[in-house]
């Protein structure tokens, strides 16, 4: 039993050390206004997580260069959630219980957002997600917001577009995750409601399926006139390439998660004519988008991805809230619930009563190796 005692002592000691750390970092605030950032900085989605960090950092830098908020500098406190819901709960606890953190940009994947949501809501701190599009996030609580539209919204939008273009027999390929499944489900219902027919629904496993020919051969037998991909760009590019090889020459449609230069780099000629709605278009003619792309490229020597743009918007909205309503947790929440018509780089933001954003996407098509505005 002596070792038990040693153990207990060690445990209390470590806990004591931890409290020490917590207090010192909490006490240093005062001259700066802190915004938390919770994103997968390591792990499977590290690429998107890093883009989110860069987007948020840029927004903070621009605000600080312009004088900060009421003379106070803004500081970004970045924490890694590894796309793991367990880790997300830890990060959420860390950020939410540090009273110097005024609001949080994050999390990225929906399961992380949902694991963190009860903690943020209990502590009454705003979390504004740049990437969680799952319909379940709608009911996550009054302090959970997002600048990305729901899968349901996009699915319905693309289904309407499908009907407008006169496609009647649609095949659906989706990744078997919350995101892919939710999207495929909504899209199927909306297509059928618009008088179309879904002739095939096939799923693949994210990160594992590399050979889509069995799925595509099956789909080819159904003779669809459109293929809808509910997934991410790596797989979409592979699907497009392999379907061309199999002689399945149909147009493709997807959602804004496919908006990445990687789609074109990986897909090459095969993704020509790929149609998707986009909230962020880096070749847009809008003044604010041009300015964002320019400063992002200057800062990081690369062009911004969709999620960098979402994070940029989310952070700017928080900074605006601090400026206009006051730099404390409740004021930021109050401001967001009433925010209408905020013009960001990913479109015009209106938050509804559930903290979901409503914004109209732009129709895009891949043409000559570039994303371009779609015209009929």
């Amino acid at each position: 039993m002596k070792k038990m005692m040693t153990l207990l002592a060690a445990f209390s000691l470590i806990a004591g050390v931890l409290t020490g750390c917590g207090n010192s970092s909490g006490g240093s605030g005062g001259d700066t206004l802190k915004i938390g950032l919770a994103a997968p900085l390591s792990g499977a989605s590290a690429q998107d997580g890093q883009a989110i960090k860069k987007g948020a950092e840029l927004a903070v830098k621009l605000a600080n260069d312009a004088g900060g908020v009421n003379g106070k500098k803004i500081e970004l406190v970045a924490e890694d959630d590894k796309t793991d819901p367990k880790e997300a709960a830890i990060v959420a606890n860390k950020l939410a219980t540090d009273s110097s953190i005024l609001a949080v940009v994050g999390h990225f994947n929906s399961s992380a957002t949902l694991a963190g949501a009860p903690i943020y809501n209990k502590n009454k701190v705003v979390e504004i997600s740049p990437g969680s599009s799952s319909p379940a996030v709608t009911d996550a609580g009054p302090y959970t917001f997002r600048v990305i539209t729901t899968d349901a919204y996009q699915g319905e939008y693309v289904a309407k577009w499908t009907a407008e273009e006169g496609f009647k027999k649609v095949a659906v390929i989706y990744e078997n995750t919350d995101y892919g499944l939710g999207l495929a489900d909504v899209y199927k219902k909306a297509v059928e409601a618009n008088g179309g027919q879904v002739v095939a629904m096939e799923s693949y496993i994210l990160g594992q399926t590399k050979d889509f020919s069995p799925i595509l051969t099956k789909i080819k037998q159904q003779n669809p006139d459109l293929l809808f991909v509910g997934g991410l760009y790596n797989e979409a590019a592979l699907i497009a390439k392999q379907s061309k090889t199999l002689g399945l020459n149909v147009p493709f449609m997807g959602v804004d998660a496919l908006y990445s230069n990687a789609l074109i780099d990986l897909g090459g000629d095969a993704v020509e004519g790929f149609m998707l709605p986009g909230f962020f278009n880096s070749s847009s003619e809008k003044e604010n988008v041009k300015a964002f792309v320019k400063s992002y490229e200057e800062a990081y020597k690369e062009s911004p991805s969709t999620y960098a743009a979402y994070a940029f918007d989310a952070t700017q909205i928080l900074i605006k809230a601090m400026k206009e309503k006051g730099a404390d947790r409740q004021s930021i929440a109050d401001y967001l619930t009433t925010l209408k018509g905020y013009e960001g780089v990913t479109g015009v933001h209106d938050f509804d009563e559930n903290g979901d954003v409503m914004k109209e996407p732009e129709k895009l098509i891949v043409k000559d190796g570039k994303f371009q505005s779609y015209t009929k």
Partner: protein
Amino acid sequence: MKSTRLLKIVAALLILALPLWLRNEYMLHIAISIGIYIMLALSLNTIVGYAGQFALGHAAFYGIGSYVTALLLLNTDLSFWLVLPIAGLVTGLFGFILGSPVIRLRGDYLGIVTLGFGEIIRLIFVNWVDVTRGPMGLPGIRSPELFGYTFTSSADFYYLVLVLVAITVLVIYRVVHSGMGLSLLTVREDEVVAESIGIRPTKYKLIAFTMGALFAGVAGAFYATYISFISPDSFLYTDSVMILAMVVLGGMASVTGSILGAIVLVVTPELLRFASDYRMMLVGLAIVLMMVFKPQGFWGESRRKRNFYGKELADKPQKSAAAVSDSNSAT
């Protein structure tokens, strides 16, 4: 002897009063996470450390416990206090079922089969959409209630996990330090010898699997009601590896070792948060260094004599102890 007893009491009081002096939810959450992982590491240690069965799918048992709890709490009116043992028993049953066919396998082969089991369970969580809601997960799991009092604050959950950990430690400690524990170790060291002296390896391996799974299920049940949202993302292969790392790092076949391993592997990544992007790399490096310089873990086999007989007895027969340890290293 007196001073150690005093220290013991002080340490116990400190742990009991933790929510009072650790007035920070983040720290409490870490303490609760440590509690969950102590249960997981200890339960895996019965399988890996004591019975010597190299199992790589422990997150599956953790997940089964969580899903059983979540589904029962969401779809029925059963109280959490009833659901908790049910989750444990159902998971224990799964441990028994998994144990039965894999008894014939040893070492690496067993590792691969249990790895496959872990993946199958995860894929069931992902694909059985009607029941598990697939990758969307199950949100809004009820909190436990006790005599009309609903558990809401981190302190409530801290005491709950403390009780569960105490039960787990007590049961596993009693079991592995009984004749059953010695039989398990005998099976691990040499199955033929075990059989020759009347210890049936099959029986003991199954006991280890069932008991290990049962406590992992209890840990899962607690996790589900504490976080109130579960999805298949929480029970990945990497989580199985993490739990195994805790067992190995702490020291195989040692209750204290598992507890230490869980504490170190939960706290280290948190202490390294300042390193942001390099954090997990540093954790990996720390584990590698640890294994190079102290391969038996923090509180491993070298202390087995002490673990069993206490310090005085272990130190007295110096010569025979050395002889035993020589023969151990030879095998």
